[in-house]
């Protein structure tokens, strides 16, 4: 059975489009057109050209020698951190801005948590001259000031989400409400493989360039295009979806999804959706989400704003329940130590999200001959303050 989306918009039992009728026309327009547009030659040409000349692709697949020696296995890092704007997020926003243009939209909205997707969206709006409004929780605006400033410099309007917990989940709600109120001229650029069908599949396809490159890059270096392990962190799950995409139905490749355990899975301060979540509906998708027994969506916690989401994309819910991927939870402390280790062994400061994926090597034994590819989803510049504060305290000992 394929692990890709079926013709009804589901991965196994997960996915679908659980949206109010007010959004139907917009989502349906996208559903009917996205595959057609993506298959269009001029679209492909524009997309590939921008990925190459503007984003800087292909991103290197780097053999991390000292890290490999330390863990006695072969570790490759897929360097999405070297993309323009510093993370994998821009692969998707480039694709979606071209999609918006093909659909004749003039106004772009987006949600953002830490601000990475907001910056990537503001960037492509500046590139194409489209109006850009980014919704961001009031709490996140306060703790991510540099990214707010970047979005504004790029010409975007940043609107605070004032409802609920005032974080990513609420920013997403506000963006959806904006879309309801602007049903004809607006395209909503969702930042992850979440939301109603066709978003999870569309975003996964735009991110699939990651695994497409891994295939030929690995072949060049190891004479095989098949790694033994693919390791990626999962918040909503877009970098993982991109890294897995061309290997989803290749069962020789072990997929490892790394979630944020926060202060500990059962501490009450966690974002480990696979362990803590139940099947439900969030942001238009049937998936696993953290919720009360009454079906109220609960607040997640992680030191990493990018993993601080109470749900997970429907693809990942399917990979978890079917056993296709192994899910591992990493605490704040484990992630921060792994992040510092990469700095000191390889001279790369990773985003804290990515640091969760790197912490797997302390949790799990790999054979010396195993080829492990880690999706290095983003760079840590945005997290410097968090790193500095963390290692100032006793936690960092």
């Amino acid at each position, binding site marked *: 059975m394929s692990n890709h989306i079926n013709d009804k918009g589901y991965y196994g039992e997960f996915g679908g489009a659980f949206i109010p009728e007010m959004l139907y026309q917009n989502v349906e327009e996208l559903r009917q057109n996205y595959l057609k547009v993506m298959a269009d030659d001029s679209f492909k040409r524009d997309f590939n050209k921008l990925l190459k000349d503007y984003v800087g692709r292909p991103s290197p697949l780097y053999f991390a020698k000292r890290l490999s020696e330390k863990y006695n296995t072969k570790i490759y890092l897929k360097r999405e951190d070297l993309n323009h704007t510093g993370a994998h997020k821009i692969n998707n926003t480039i694709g979606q801005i071209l999609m918006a243009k093909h659909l004749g939209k003039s106004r772009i909205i987006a949600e953002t948590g830490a601000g990475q997707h907001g910056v990537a969206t503001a960037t492509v709006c500046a590139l194409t001259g489209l109006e850009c409004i980014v919704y961001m929780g009031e709490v996140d605006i306060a703790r991510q000031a540099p990214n707010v400033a970047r979005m504004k410099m790029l010409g975007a309007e940043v609107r605070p989400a004032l409802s609920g917990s005032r974080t990513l989940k609420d920013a997403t709600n506000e963006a959806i409400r904006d879309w309801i109120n602007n*049903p004809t001229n607006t395209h909503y650029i969702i930042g992850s493989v979440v939301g109603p069908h066709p978003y999870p599949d569309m975003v996964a396809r735009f991110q699939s360039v990651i695994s497409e490159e891994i295939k030929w890059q690995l072949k060049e270096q190891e004479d095989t295009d098949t790694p033994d392990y693919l390791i990626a962190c999962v918040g909503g799950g877009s970098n993982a979806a991109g890294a897995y995409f061309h290997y989803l139905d290749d069962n020789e490749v072990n997929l490892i999804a790394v979630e944020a355990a926060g202060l500990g899975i059962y501490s009450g301060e966690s974002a480990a959706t696979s362990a803590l979540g139940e099947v439900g*509906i969030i942001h238009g998708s049937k998936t696993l989400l953290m919720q009360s027994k009454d079906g109220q969506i609960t607040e997640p916690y992680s030191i990493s704003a990018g993993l601080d989401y109470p749900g997970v994309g429907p693809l990942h819910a399917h990979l978890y329940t079917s056993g296709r991927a192994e899910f591992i939870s990493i605490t704040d402390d484990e992630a921060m130590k792994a992040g510092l280790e990469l700095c000191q062994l390889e001279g790369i400061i990773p985003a804290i999200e990515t640091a969760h994926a790197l912490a797997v090597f302390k949790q799990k034994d790999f054979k010396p001959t195993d080829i492990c590819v880690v999706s290095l989803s983003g760079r840590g510049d945005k997290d410097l303050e968090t790193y500095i504060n963390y290692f100032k305290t006793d936690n960092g000992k």
Partner: protein
Amino acid sequence: MGNRIHQRLKENKKVLSIYFTAGFPQLEDTTTILKKLTESGVDMIEIGLPFSDPLADGPTIQASSTQALKNGMTTDRLFEQLRNIRETVQIPLLIMGYFNPIFQYGVEAFCNKCRKIGIDGLIIPDLPVDVYQENYKSIFEDCGLSNVLLITPQTSEERIRYIDSVSDGFIYMVSSASTTGAQNGFGDEQTSYFERISEMKLNNPQIVGFGISNNETFKQATQFSHGAIIGSAFINHLNEDGIDRIDGFIKSLRP
């Protein structure tokens, strides 16, 4: 099939329907509000089951939902409050809620509970019509529940016909492309949309919701429809005046 909704809509009178969020302003206000609304002459009531993430709602109903949850409202609590409601309230009652809390309760268990209490219908804005038809329609029918579906100015004629064919009770006609919230008046665009739908001669009557706040908008909304739903304006009234002056507010809507 013939629940209270069908009976009421057979009468040749414009229906005034009120939405309120259960558990707001105070946790135990639910039955008091229901009784006061009935006594003041409203024709139908939608009881809002509060949700943490109400996507289709504007700030007024969002805030009332947040407060209701803070007050301790839960699905079980609401059913407990409504247990004996049919001893005093005879008008049609619907529950309006988002799908996730109903899904967690179990759709079948939820519908059975509604049947026992005497709820006449459900409005679940994020349960798509095709999922309803495929998975849940027979459960609703077994429980005598109307499932009320929404249409908007953007809904195509073909889809309106489809929704009409699956609907039972009435069609919830969203007045404009917006989330819920009171507006000052309807323009020509909305009036012509109301008229266009009216001329489609659908099987189910239409009741207009979103943006109705006073006598003027009520009259505009019901010129070409069978009734109108007032939600945010009523929540605003509760915010300002509490639950003591409900009668005066309702009378001002339909003097």
